[in-house]
């Protein structure tokens, strides 16, 4: 699914990713943990193609093709989804309009027929019901005036709608109450399949109680300093990053 080799990237002229190696096979869930400023969000932006994040070395293959060559929208249309650490507000654009426009853009890319307003609404309602998310936010402008938790729920809803092949979640659990945390985990678990993979950035073990990862990695100072199975997360919680990174 994803093959990252010696990936280096700079932001604002400063090297942040200093040689990342990571392979994610179809069906696998990888958790990435690490101290603030380690480069976790940077990794998610580089993978999704954000402007200003310059790749200076290494390669990334996604489903066997060069990911770094694609525009951000092409990556999205090919099934890569990023749940943002800080979802962005778009004033004046109703969430429903935003979702429908994007959803149809993706369908068009794949050569599928676009959904009309009614069909689309039906689909969204199905997803909100499944996840237990209130659909009144569909009428509101994208993320405008949403609480922190609502913004994150909105990301989960979008993920459920787009049904991506590769889910990147950047601290989707931060700032969530326990119910919302379950919604987020449920969103991932519902999509979990032998064909889909996920990279989950988090600071807390509690999310991993609900989404059990196949692998856990520690990212510190732009490098993966340690990898292990789900027990690594427990160990981290106990000892902190400093001890693990030093080890």
């Amino acid at each position: 699914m994803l093959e990252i080799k010696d990936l280096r990237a700079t932001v604002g002229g400063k090297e942040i990713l200093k040689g990342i190696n990571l392979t994610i096979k179809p069906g696998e869930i990888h958790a990435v943990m690490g101290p603030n400023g380690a480069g976790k969000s940077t990794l998610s932006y580089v993978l999704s193609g954000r402007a200003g994040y310059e790749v200076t070395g290494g390669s990334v293959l996604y489903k066997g093709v060069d990911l770094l060559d694609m525009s951000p929208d092409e990556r999205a249309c090919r099934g890569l989804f990023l749940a943002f650490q800080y979802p962005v507000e778009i004033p004046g654009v109703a969430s429903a309009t935003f979702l429908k426009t994007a959803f149809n853009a993706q369908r068009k890319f794949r050569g599928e027929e676009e959904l009309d307003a009614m069909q689309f609404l039906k689909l969204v309602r199905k997803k909100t019901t499944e996840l237990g998310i209130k659909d009144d936010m569909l009428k509101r402008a994208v993320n405008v005036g949403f609480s922190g938790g609502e913004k994150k729920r909105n990301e989960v809803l979008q993920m459920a709608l787009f049904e991506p092949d590769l889910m990147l979640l950047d601290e989707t659990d931060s700032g969530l109450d326990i119910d919302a945390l379950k919604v987020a985990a449920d969103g991932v678990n519902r999509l979990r399949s032998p064909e889909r993979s996920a990279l989950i950035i988090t600071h807390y073990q509690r999310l991993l109680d609900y989404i059990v990862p196949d692998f856990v990695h520690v990212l510190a100072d732009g490098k993966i300093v340690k990898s292990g199975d789900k027990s690594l997360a427990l160990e981290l919680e106990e000892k902190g990053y400093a001890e693990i990174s030093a080890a």
Partner: protein
Amino acid sequence: MAVSQETVEQVASVSEKYKYGFVSDIEADMAPLGLNEDIVRFISAKKDEPEWMLEWRLKAYRYWLTMEEPTWANVDYPKIDFQDIYYYSAPKTKVNPKSLDEVDPELLEVYKKLGIPLKEQEVLAGVEGAYNVAVDAVFDSVSVATTFRERLEKEGVIFCPISEAIRNHPELVKKYMGSVVPYTDNYYSALNCAVFTDGSFCYIPKGVRCPMELSTYFRINAAQTGQFERTLIIAEDDSYVSYLEGCTAPMRDENQLHAAVVELIIMDNAEIKYSTVQNWYPGDENGVGGIYNFVTKRAACRGVNSKVSWTQVETGSAITWKYPSCILQGDNSVGEFYSIAITNNLQQADTGTKMIHLGKNTSSTIISKGISAGRAQSTYRGLVRMGKKAENARNHTVCDSLLIGDKCGAHTVPYIENQSRTAKIEHEATTSKVSEEQLFYCQQRGLSEEESMALIVNGFCKEVLQKLPMEFAVEAQKLVGISLEGSVG
């Protein structure tokens, strides 16, 4: 974070699309080149006008000769050579067709290509989805067709080319034309009074709610011609009308002048809703060609509780220079101005409004959304004046500018004159940039950069787009996207 230069350039490489840029090969009857009293007489004779009209034109012309071209607007263009313009150009075809069957099929074809519904059968036959609108089609200097006239006449509504109104309804024209914008008003309105060729006339009698939208579609086709149109709308007591105008022109390397005058008169408890989607050819990405759109639009709310709202979507023209204004004379009268002005590449716009409060409890609302991309410059210029007798008058102004890239500019020039001790005036202004963050968020959901931009900008304009009649709103939304193509980032 601002949009990266790379993005700006990348998107700038996408070619400009102005789908109305074609020229139609239609034989024209033209006036000799240039301007003098004989040309004014020529136009008047072509229109078969009564003597009083010619006299008025000549007075305006002589007055215009004494005037200086104004220079206060924040726009920059080479001096216009008024002797290098054709002031009259009409298709050589049957003038004043009685019905659509008599209209030159080639002309009908042009309007079909432009997407203008010059047909009555569908609506009359009740075809579902047929757009219920009466259209006056002005092609260069003449009106070539006006639809649904009989249906409107049944309600007492007069909707016809202004040249015809001058002949058939002289008492109305004499009474109202020039009563809101006198020929002495300004340089371009004086010129317009002298050489105006066509435009629409609407009269809504007392107590009538106009049964359909009225619209005029202006098309400039012939090269080197100026279009000087004149529109006059009168809403008598307790009446209502919604009027729309649209404009397009071929792509040409030369600049062409469009100097219109629009006058609205609104009596007791009456309302006029006036919407414009202006999409004249804007010139190419290097600023070559395009229309100079120098327009005077003014509404007089003469009656108590009268109301006017101007809604404009200005996306075209090399230069736009216009201030649709409201004179709020009647007590409790209401004036509204909702504007979207998009400038891209080297377009320039200096636009806004004037709210002149004279009566008691008059109120006005101004919502202006200016969007600049490329190397364009956009200025909002607005006057709010509260007269001595404007007790408890209120104005609320919101003026938002959005910048795309870092080579364009937005300027806000509010003028406030208050002589009323009880008046309330509120003014809010913001300037923002389309953030890289917003674009990336949209792109991460699968929208291309241009689609993302169109979505974000449409969101920014939403309050104004909502004010347009439904059918127009959808078109306008698409237009917002299209007009940003080629230099967004």
